[in-house]
């Protein structure tokens, strides 16, 4: 597996966001996950229920199917761990992989780890990294301990999700019952549940299985997301990716230069590097890994992606699975359920008798039972004498002292608020009536609403066509300045300067040209002094417009004077479109 092939955006996330990443992964690869899941799980479900039925312990089937969930949790994990690196396995591949992949861990996950609250978090650690014994424990601790709480909550929430879905599926039936039959319906359902006929147990098993089918892959995916995020955190995968890209870029860019350098400095080692950057990086990576592996005391274990995913891929069973196509597919669920079924059968012999096969010829038996019951020693009759009061005393005392302490106040407030509320209703109605001439019009207008006005959007005053420049620009500017409208004075000065500059350079300015564009055009002005004055005018305007900073009176006067001189403003200005 190569980290360059990652198909998810890695960055350090919070643990909850890692959960989102996991569920998003499950969602994206839904087809690849659910097809094999259903293909394996449906026959298993049917088989387990059939076996349980034949042994008449149907209630056990639900439990067995639930207990075997880790077997099927391998499927989403297998698909996701490959899909993350861009190789989405086909249904056939996934199915074949189930014959071997991760089975080594299943005894643990089907027994003492089955009820572990962080199952989804440890599943990828164990199954994908393939470490053993103490190393695996260390690995689980390093990866799992900071997100242990989130993993536990995740399990807890998912259990409740399953419960909600199970009850939700069951509740759909209730939704279609009309209200008046609800009580009758409830009584019948209650009776049915007590009797627990076969079909209702089967239905319940099926609903539960459906809930698991929906939630379980998301659960495993979320655990995988947590795992990915932890690896990203402690190994900085995202940084590695970016650095690799940078390395490739720099080496490509530097290749000719390095070659020259190498020739010049006679450094043959350096010249060999550019053509095979990736290989070099990998070698260095594995070397570092091995060095790290020897360092056992390190708290965060040494394993990195290459050795871990590499080795896992080797024993992942993909190839073994393809080789093993001819062999009979093993059916682990069958054996387990069979034993469970027989075990349960012994304990529930009475139900077998009631259901039927043993009752072929039982008249003799029934007579014997009747005779047995007739025997007075079996059902002895006793006489019991008790004393009873003649007149039943009415029992009320305990009610009396329970009158709450502020009852009188409460009654008063209740009375007040009852009438108060009626008063409020009256006032509201009155207000509505009095204001009806106003709001009735809204309705009428609403009914006969005029079509919208034209779609023309007027964004700001800037869209308004600007007034043409006055004939005597300096006087106008000075007048504005004297009136205290400094900003407008500077704006007028800017406009006039731009216009003069445009006429002088014979440039065509785009409508709404920015200051920078105007300045760029102004470089065509022939005289340096003109360019300088123009730039200062623009600067003064920018300070005023964007920073609310105005020049002093003398500076302003000096600038205006110079501009008027340079651009010959005292005469009439040529009229044209302002920029």
């Amino acid at each position, binding site marked *: 597996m190569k980290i360059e092939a990652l198909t998810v955006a890695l960055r350090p996330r919070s643990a909850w966001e890692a959960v989102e990443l996991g569920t998003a992964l499950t969602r994206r690869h839904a087809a690849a996950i659910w097809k094999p899941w259903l293909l394996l799980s449906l026959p298993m479900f049917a088989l387990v229920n059939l076996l349980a039925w034949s042994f008449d312990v149907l209630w056990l089937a639900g439990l067995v199917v639930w207990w075997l969930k880790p077997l099927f949790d391998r499927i989403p994990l297998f698909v996701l761990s490959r899909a993350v690196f861009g190789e989405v396995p086909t249904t056939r591949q996934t199915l074949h992989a189930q014959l071997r992949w991760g089975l080594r861990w299943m005894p643990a996950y089907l027994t003492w780890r089955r009820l572990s609250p962080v199952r989804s978090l440890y599943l990828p650690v164990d199954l994908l990294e393939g470490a053993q014994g103490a190393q695996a424990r260390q690995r689980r601790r390093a990866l799992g301990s900071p997100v242990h709480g989130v993993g536990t909550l995740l399990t807890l929430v998912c259990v409740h999700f399953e419960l909600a879905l199970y009850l939700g599926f069951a509740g759909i039936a209730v939704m279609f019952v009309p209200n008046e039959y609800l009580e009758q319906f409830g009584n019948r359902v209650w009776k049915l549940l007590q009797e627990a006929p076969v079909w209702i147990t089967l239905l319940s098993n099926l609903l539960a299985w459906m809930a698991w089918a929906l939630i379980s892959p998301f659960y495993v995916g979320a655990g995988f997301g947590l795992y990915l995020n932890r690896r990203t955190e402690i190994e900085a995968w995202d940084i590695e990716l970016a650095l690799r890209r940078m390395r490739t*870029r720099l080496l490509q860019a530097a290749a000719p230069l390095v070659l020259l350098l190498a020739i010049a400095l006679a450094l043959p080692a350096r010249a060999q590097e550019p053509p095979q950057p990736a290989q070099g990086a990998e070698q260095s990576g594995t070397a570092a890994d091995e060095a790290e592996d020897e360092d056992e005391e390190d708290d965060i274990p040494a394993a990195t992606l290459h050795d871990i995913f590499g080795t896992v891929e080797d024993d992942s069973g993909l190839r073994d699975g393809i080789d093993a196509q001819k062999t009979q597919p093993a059916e682990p669920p069958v054996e387990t359920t069979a034993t469970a079924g027989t075990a349960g059968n012994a304990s529930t012999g009475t139900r077998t008798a009631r259901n039927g096969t043993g009752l072929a010829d039982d008249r003799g038996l029934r007579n014997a039972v009747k005779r047995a019951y007739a025997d007075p020693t079996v059902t002895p009759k006793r006489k019991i004498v008790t004393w009873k009061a003649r007149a039943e005393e009415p029992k009320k005392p305990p009610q009396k002292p329970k009158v709450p302490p502020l009852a009188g106040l409460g009654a008063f407030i209740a009375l007040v608020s009852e009438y108060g509320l009626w008063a409020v209703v009256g006032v509201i109605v009155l207000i509505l009536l009095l204001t009806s001439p106003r709001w009735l019009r809204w309705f009428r207008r609403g009914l006969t609403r005029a079509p919208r006005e034209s779609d023309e959007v007027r964004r700001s005053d800037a869209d308004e066509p600007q007034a043409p420049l006055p004939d005597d620009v300096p006087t106008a500017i000075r007048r504005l300045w004297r009136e205290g409208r400094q900003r407008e004075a500077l704006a007028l000065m800017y406009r006039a300067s731009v216009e003069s500059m445009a006429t002088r350079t014979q440039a065509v300015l785009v409508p709404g040209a920015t200051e920078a564009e105007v300045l760029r055009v102004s470089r065509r002005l022939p005289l340096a002094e003109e360019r300088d004055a123009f730039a200062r005018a623009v600067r003064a305007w920018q300070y005023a417009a964007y920073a609310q900073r105005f020049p002093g009176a003398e500076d302003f006067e000096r600038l205006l004077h110079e501009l008027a001189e340079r651009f010959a403003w005292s005469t009439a200005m040529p009229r044209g479109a302002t920029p």
Partner: protein
Amino acid sequence: MLDTYREVVTPEGVALHLPAAGPVPRALAWVIDFLIRMAMVFVSGIVFGLLGRGGFGFQAVMVFLVYWFYPVLFEAMWNGRTPGKRALGLRVIANNGAPVGWLAAFSRNLLRVVDMLPFGYATGLVAGLLDPWGRRLGDMVAGTLVVHDARPHEPSPAPVKHALAPSVALRPYEQAALVAFGERGPHLTEARQAELADLAEPLTGARGTAAVTRLYGIANWLLGRR
């Protein structure tokens, strides 16, 4: 690349990344809110219980208000966060990243009635699992989104003192990676730091510990520490 945020491009051309929250943290936030609501009803029940029968009406009003308006009030007035959402680091916002308004808060919470069908939020749960941004039906109708609220983190201290200008011009993503290395590098094992720094050999011209130190120096320089 698969990611978990919803991207909204503003009219200015800025891409906002809204990290959508899925059903799991939202369910937990709901549980916290539910407990708070229960406590409110319980306490008010005691208080109004003192008033005897007259208190029943108030209690009924209280239950009504807590049931319908608790989330609306908090979401509209407390920046899209109920206490439970705050505890889980979640926030309700509008689809486009704007704060959630009264109308949206009302509609998304009134539509809980639909999401609760047929039992225990099953509809909302299925919708949340299938929707790429974890929205339940109420969110879809109201045009809102529940996001993870990024908590600001303290800038970590520089691992080395000196700053070093990179020898070549770096692209934005490379600068980001180097800064990230400077911030998160000290949490990695030393072997891993060296391994990562070796990748940047064309930039640093060194390997091993020397490369790590130089990368930290470059990170300092990029962060403006001189």
